[in-house]
């Protein structure tokens, strides 16, 4: 029972970097662009976010620096796919490798350093409710902000004018162009938002969730975030649920390892990757559902006037 409450409570935090990055990627993909550099952006942000907290002690500054750097990297990606019309998959890999390299380079002086874990921001009174109280109201502020951002995005994408423009651009950039929208500008902003969110995700991972810096600490979570967008079939609410389930899974692995059931730790470490593959296969299996939900122009480059 304690174990279950522990997992249900902690899953919010382990899900947060996945969700932040996935929400950003969802918006990018809604505009018709797939950005595979999430892992690299998160790594770069995690390194500099950690360094900022370590040197200044300010979390706010750390998140700002991290988001800014990830956005810079997303601008490199945007330049490749929007100005140079380069292949989106290759460009994402390029920016991703650059991000991973820069993260190792900039983070090298902080290898294995730790930060003091920040004290959580629990909601007074409500957190005293048994079980549910501790699950829902003892999270840190970033968790609440992330969930709020998700709910806002859900409304923006479905019901606001900006969301409509985003969807039109992603469905058919030529029609969007004829309607008078600047396709490249919309895609640029969507990519930039993806960078911003991946930056926050990286900073959260390295400064709050596991306040230890080591090279490669993102551990494929950027890629899981990419898979989450497919799991959620480009729907915000489904992506949020998927992120929570994966957060619980990541935590369950840790929990099982502490139980000492004689399962090799490598088996448990592999579980999220195995689950990603299985869930991806199950969700993608329904080609019609993917087709109905995926932005039609996803992955195709667009040049005005063609």
């Amino acid at each position: 029972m304690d174990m279950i409450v522990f997992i249900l409570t902690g899953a919010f935090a382990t899900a947060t970097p996945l969700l932040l990055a996935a929400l950003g990627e969802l918006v990018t993909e809604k505009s018709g662009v797939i950005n595979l550099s999430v892992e690299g952006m998160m790594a770069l942000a995690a390194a500099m976010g950690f360094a900022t907290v370590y040197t200044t002690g300010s979390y706010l500054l750390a998140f700002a620096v991290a988001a800014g750097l990830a956005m810079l990297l997303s601008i490199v990606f945007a330049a490749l796919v929007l100005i140079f019309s380069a292949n989106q998959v290759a460009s994402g890999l390029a920016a991703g490798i650059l991000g991973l390299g820069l993260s190792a380079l900039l983070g090298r002086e902080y290898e294995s350093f730790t930060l003091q874990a920040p004290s959580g921001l629990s909601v007074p009174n409500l957190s005293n409710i048994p079980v549910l109280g501790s699950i829902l109201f003892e999270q840190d502020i970033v968790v609440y902000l992330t969930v709020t951002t998700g709910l806002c995005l859900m409304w923006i994408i479905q019901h606001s004018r900006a969301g409509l423009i985003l969807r039109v651009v992603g469905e058919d950039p030529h029609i969007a162009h004829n309607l008078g929208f600047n396709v490249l500008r919309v895609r640029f902003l969507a990519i930039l938002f993806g960078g911003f969110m991946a930056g926050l995700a990286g900073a959260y991972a390295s400064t709050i969730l596991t306040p230890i810096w080591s090279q490669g600490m993102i551990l494929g979570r950027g890629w899981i975030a990419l898979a989450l967008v497919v799991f959620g079939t480009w729907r915000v609410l489904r992506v949020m649920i998927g992120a929570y389930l994966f957060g619980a899974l990541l935590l369950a692995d840790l929990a099982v390892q502490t139980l000492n059931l004689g399962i090799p730790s490598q088996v448990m470490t592999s579980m999220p990757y195995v689950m990603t593959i299985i869930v991806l296969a199950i969700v993608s299996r329904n080609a019609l559902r993917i087709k109905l939900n995926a932005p039609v122009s996803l992955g195709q480059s667009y040049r005005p006037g063609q």
Partner: protein
Amino acid sequence: MIRYEFVPRAQPSTGALVIVPILTVALSILCGTALFYILDKPAGVAFYAFFIEPFLSNYTLSEIAIKAAPLILIAQGLAIGFRARVWNIGAEGQLTIGAICAGLIPITWPQSDNVLMLPAMILVGALTGMVWAAIAAALRTAFNASEIIVTLMLNAIAAQILVYLINGPLKDPRGFSFPQSVPFPDVALYPLLIEDSFLRANVSIYIVLALSLLAWIYVRHSFSGFRLLVSGLAPAAAHYAGFSSNRAVWISLLVGGAAAGLAGVGEISGPIGKLQPILSPAYGFAAIIVAFLGGLNPIGIVVAGFFMAVIYVGADGAVLSAGLPASAPIVFQGLILVFYLASHTLVNFELRRIGGTKGTA
């Protein structure tokens, strides 16, 4: 107001195809040197260590051959898929699985002097690399699951399998508790290019060059190679012509997996000589860059592979002589790919100056 715009060319420029890699390398070196300067490292010393020193001794030349072999081999396999727009990002995992399975042979018979051991390892390594990649091909063709994400996840899983095995069942009992297997017998190793020398270069580089020639023939002169290209460039046209896109996925991943698995054998039967936690300094990812820098062309890939090998060897030297951080070459690899993709635009587009007009973009 003067502005520039990319205007599509009627035909891809062949001149640009030659200029693009040169421009890419020049820009990357320029940017990399600026980076060394920012890092407060003497840029001249770093540049010298990176690009000149690797050519100055027999030892470094032999190391270039050692590192070029897996890079070229994997890149040739990946390029066949990339041309068909099948994105195998899992060469690192396929290399690992190929090495583990091939390694089981010498680990089982560590005292053997049977000369068939190396050929058997080559066969097993290529086949098991193929099987690991086939998982992604099967999931893509049967369930439409993105091969990018599946191959990437399989990398992480392969790495965990290796760590488990060399800490457990395959661990050398007399290895002073190091996580590694027993050392392989001589019959499990590629013959050295120069016997009884301290140079580690071995005959695998010849095998790789021969396979590169084969790749060139396949791409240039076979109908199968043509079909793959069409299904990548014009999926609709390929569909109407009856070229199956599933077939392209299978061929791309199987060839890529076999090449990566073979490269894995090259590592354990070459410079390493056993199984250990790290089998490759991310050759599987660097090969993606080699494939692009070589223009996805088998001949270009050979040149690009040697260039990337120089960077690897140069980086080792630069870490020592110029105090460069070990992660600098990864940054450099990222820069190369970014600049390559940007300058590759010149192949299909022309940069035109539009003076005085407001422009339409």
